[in-house]
């Protein structure tokens, strides 16, 4: 397993060295190999597919332009994912004015799921499509930093140290922002309860 991983790293390193020597075509295998992860990350923060594609294109453009700055100390994937997370954060900040601010336009399945939760919380299924849509709505209401922290910490279960490395924030700042993000999340949930059931 370790041997295989070393071989893969060497392969990435060879491709990167070739690109830096002036062979841009060697960048294509890296795009093919890592695009699924970048797409999955971008889809956490953007809903429309056109926005997701814009984010991923931006990530690869930045990666290509800054490739000479990659020192090879960490795996290429880590370096790329750091770039992807920061690009997603920039996207959230650019689009924060269009954040959803109301739960009044819930679809029928979403409304039914909430009703089900109120009646019998244990019976409201977590794998239901309506639950996933509700989470998307909830996250869309958060500020960019709150959404990023909640996604990385609570949904992706990443440790604080890793979040600090991904975002470029200090560990202390991640903890402070996580505290504020949870409070913001709770405030949004309180609004659901107020708008729908009071």
């Amino acid at each position: 397993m370790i041997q295989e991983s070393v071989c893969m790293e060497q392969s990435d390193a060879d491709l990167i060295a070739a690109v830096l020597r002036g062979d841009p075509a060697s960048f294509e295998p890296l795009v093919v190999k890592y695009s699924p992860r970048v797409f999955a990350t971008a889809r956490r923060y953007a809903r429309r597919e056109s926005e997701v594609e814009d984010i991923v294109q931006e990530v690869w453009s930045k990666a290509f332009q800054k490739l000479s700055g990659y020192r090879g100390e960490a795996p290429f994937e880590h370096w790329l994912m750091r770039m992807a997370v920061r690009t997603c954060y920039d996207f959230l900040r650019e689009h924060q004015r269009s954040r959803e601010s109301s739960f009044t336009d819930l679809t029928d399945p979403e409304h039914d799921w909430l009703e089900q939760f109120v009646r019998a919380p244990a019976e409201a299924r977590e794998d239901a499509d309506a639950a996933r849509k509700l989470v998307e709505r909830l996250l869309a209401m958060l500020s960019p930093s709150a959404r990023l922290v909640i996604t990385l910490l609570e949904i992706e279960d990443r440790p604080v140290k890793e979040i600090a490395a991904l975002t470029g924030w200090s560990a202390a700042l991640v903890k402070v922002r996580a505290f504020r993000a949870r409070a913001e999340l709770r405030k949004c949930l309180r609004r659901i309860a107020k708008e729908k059931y009071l």
Partner: protein
Amino acid sequence: MNLTELQNKLLAAARRNPPDSQVPYAFEKRIMARLAAAPKPSEWLAWTRALWFGAAACVAVAVLASVWPVQPTDDDDDSFSAGVEQNILASVDDFDNVW
């Protein structure tokens, strides 16, 4: 409504439904075409930028250097210059006394 439970339930729902990692068809071709079409950074442009930064820094230093001597100091300039003059001419005064 139990908000803590609702929060836990919704976060669990998000964990159970990870986003799709599907890549659109021939996406890598699109990326490579975009990278090939992107304008390459010109060497002259980099030099021009660097020289402008250098020029701005030089102007800042020149302005600071011209403003600094104008500022009044706490030292008494008359006593300082008189002291310098006295020290330099001390030997000449002694020479006068010898004659």
